[in-house]
């Protein structure tokens, strides 16, 4: 943390702001576009920009995880999902429901409340992003030194999710 003036943006601030703007804008596209495949692609852009933000914040390992898991796996899964459910290709009007107004106000309200809260609480706080990035080595040490038990629990969770997903997808189950 430094004692620089509040209103003097540094380069890092600018880079972060640009990346953030990209992320937010493409996220907006995700929830508004009329083409379902486009939404997935905008999601890629948004998540990628967020990954960039992580890099700026010196969270190197998290950024790569973001890229690997979200961009690599999740989005692909989603695309497969669209394919299997015969999502319409091309613009479609029934992607959005009828309660647009309510949703708008609710989300704006959430954003506003949280935003006001954040600015009110941390408006003048500075963080230091000049330190050593948290590489895989650093994170690995943290994870396996302090967070082993949750980590293992998580692996069990993943396993059961896997089993569950398979069980659900078997054609002769359910229905």
């Amino acid at each position, binding site marked *: 943390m430094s004692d620089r003036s509040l209103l003097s943006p540094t380069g890092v601030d600018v880079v972060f702001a640009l990346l*953030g703007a990209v992320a937010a804008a493409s996220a907006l596209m995700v*929830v508004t576009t009329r083409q379902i495949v486009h939404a997935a692609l905008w999601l890629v852009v948004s998540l990628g920009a967020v990954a960039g933000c*992580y890099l700026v914040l010196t969270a190197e390992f998290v950024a790569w995880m973001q890229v690997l898991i979200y961009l690599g796996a*999740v989005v692909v899964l989603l695309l497969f999902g669209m394919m299997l*459910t015969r999502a319409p290709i091309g613009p479609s009007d029934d992607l959005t429901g009828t309660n*647009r107004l309510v*949703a708008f106000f609710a989300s704006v309200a959430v954003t506003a409340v949280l935003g006001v809260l954040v600015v009110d609480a941390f408006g003048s706080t500075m963080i230091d992003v000049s330190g050593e990035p*948290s590489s895989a080595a650093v994170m690995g040490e943290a994870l396996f030194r302090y967070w082993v038990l949750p980590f293992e629990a998580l692996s069990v969770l993943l396993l059961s999710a896997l089993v569950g997903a398979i069980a659900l997808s078997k054609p002769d189950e359910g229905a």
Partner: protein
Amino acid sequence: MHLSLPLLLSVSLFGIGVYGLLVRRNAILVLMSVELMLNGVNVSLVAFDVFWAEALRAGQSLAIFVITIAAAEIGLGLAILLLLYRMRGSIAIDEATDLREDAA
């Protein structure tokens, strides 16, 4: 760097996710909105981690956990959606209203 910058990003991602969650009919798009919300939370987790800068790396570790769980969630969610699609030929969530209360 201002702490409020990542936090504001986090808030806007979350809000946008909320909007998508409430407004989208296609269940896959709803899942995407949920991902956006999770990302929003992740951003603030990482930002606060940098703010505290302690050896435990709690924020980043939790972010990683969240990402993992998100992956699991997407897997399960899509499996459920596929099942839904097979059963009724549509994944519009406003048509999945079997649990409604019929007026007595």
